[in-house]
């Protein structure tokens, strides 16, 4: 049912009536979602609501029980954990699965783009958490995917590193312009990075909020308003009062 073919009408991803059942637990029930070419969509939702399940279906790591999924053939995933092979040097972890003799050159270029030119020949265990995640990002981007799937890739990083990663991701995405689906817990992150934020509840998409250009500045009234709205989607009403609108 997962057809790796380009969807018509500029939609890179087209999901219709997607259903996934684990035992007697229905995790996805008739979920619909489109992602346009080059569009950055953030997906928020409570823990355990099925975000990773959806992402795995899009990655082709799982089969749906119902509905259709159309995705482009070139897809890459960055997981919450870096998933680097500890027994391969950094550049080989980036070049993994690439064919041809210029694999190393491509890996080195990708590592330079994420600011790790000095770590090409390092062992993964010598990297910090943020550096390892940048390698994972390089591993995904070196393949120039049409669809980039990010499953809470910054959740395990400290706040400062996360802010740097946001800037990096924005810069890299701007160059390749893949369609992106970012799963996140962090409402601020969703607003700062995405063109559109969708909220998941009860196994389907419950709401969607386009992100206006003015909202991507922290501290702008649009940012505060959207943030409050998204937190409300997650059922965090009181947090809206914390937001001070200048």
């Amino acid at each position: 049912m997962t057809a790796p073919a380009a969807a018509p009408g500029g939609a890179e991803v087209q999901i219709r009536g997607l259903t996934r059942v684990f035992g007697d637990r229905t995790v996805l029930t008739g979920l619909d979602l489109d992602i346009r070419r080059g569009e950055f969509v953030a997906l928020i939702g409570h823990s355990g609501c099925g975000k990773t399940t959806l992402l795995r279906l899009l990655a082709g790591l799982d089969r749906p029980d119902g509905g259709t999924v159309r995705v482009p053939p070139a897809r890459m995933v960055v997981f919450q954990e870096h998933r680097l092979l500890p027994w391969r040097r950094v550049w080989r972890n980036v070049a993994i699965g690439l064919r041809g003799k210029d694999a190393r050159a491509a890996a080195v270029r990708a590592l330079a783009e994420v600011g790790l030119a000095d770590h090409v020949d390092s062992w993964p265990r010598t990297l910090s958490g943020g550096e390892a995640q940048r390698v994972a990002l390089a591993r995904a981007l070196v393949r120039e995917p049409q669809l980039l799937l990010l499953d809470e890739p910054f959740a395990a990083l400290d706040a400062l590193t996360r802010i740097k990663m946001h800037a990096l991701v924005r810069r890299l995405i701007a160059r390749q312009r893949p369609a992106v689906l970012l799963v996140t817990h962090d409402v601020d992150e969703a607003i700062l990075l995405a063109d559109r934020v969708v909220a998941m509840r009860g196994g389907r998409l419950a709401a969607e909020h386009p992100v206006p250009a003015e909202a991507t500045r922290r501290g702008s009234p649009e940012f505060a308003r959207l943030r409050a709205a998204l937190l409300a989607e997650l059922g965090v009403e009181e947090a809206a009062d914390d937001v001070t609108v200048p």
Partner: protein
Amino acid sequence: MSRFPHRTVSWLAPLALLALWEGAARGGLLSDQVLPAPSTVVATAADLTADGELPRHLLASLRRAATGFALGAAAGLGLGVLVGLSRIAESLIDRSVQMVRAVPFLAVLPLVIVWFGVGEGGKVFLIALGTGFPLYLNTVLGIRQIDPKLLEMSRVVGQGRLERVRWVILPGALPSILGGLRLALTHAWLALVIAETIGATEGIGFMATNAREFLQVDVIVLVVLLYALIGITCDLLARFLERRLLSWHASYAPGSP
């Protein structure tokens, strides 16, 4: 941290013990028929080397051990990889092997004698048996313990089955396989000692048995020391391989304890 020279003392202590032994033997406290002086054992070793007896028997023992080890390792590793990679092979082979494994491999000694007599075949078989099981078990375990998240990543980047085995499965199982190798070397060595007590006509075990007939305690002590030396060499070999092949691993990296 402390002023006490632990390292120096840890080497001096056994040397002191050796000196004490030498002194006791020379002073007549230890009879030559109980424990000859270390210097006597060294002299015996020199004599036996000069007349070619020691090299001949040592070579016979090493050839025997190497043959058994190679056969056992090939079988253990080969079956282990097969069972680790293939569900069908697992259901065909694994349970039987796991059941046979409950038998201490030295307990089959009488059977081996009945099957092979006291010839070379039985000795090699015993060594192969001691080698094969730990390698098989650790190989299977190592492959099963590989992080499924890494296997998933391998799928995401589009690796085929063969590439996955080479990049993820074998390197991931390697620490466990090398642990099995260490155990296999210990068993092979133990099997060698036992095997050589059953009707050998050459080998250092034969030297010891022969020496017992003539109450040549110095030769017996020499053989015991040689067995110890082989054991230490095996251990060093296993350590060397671990350091060499697992340099990516934090606990084997240069500079770590």
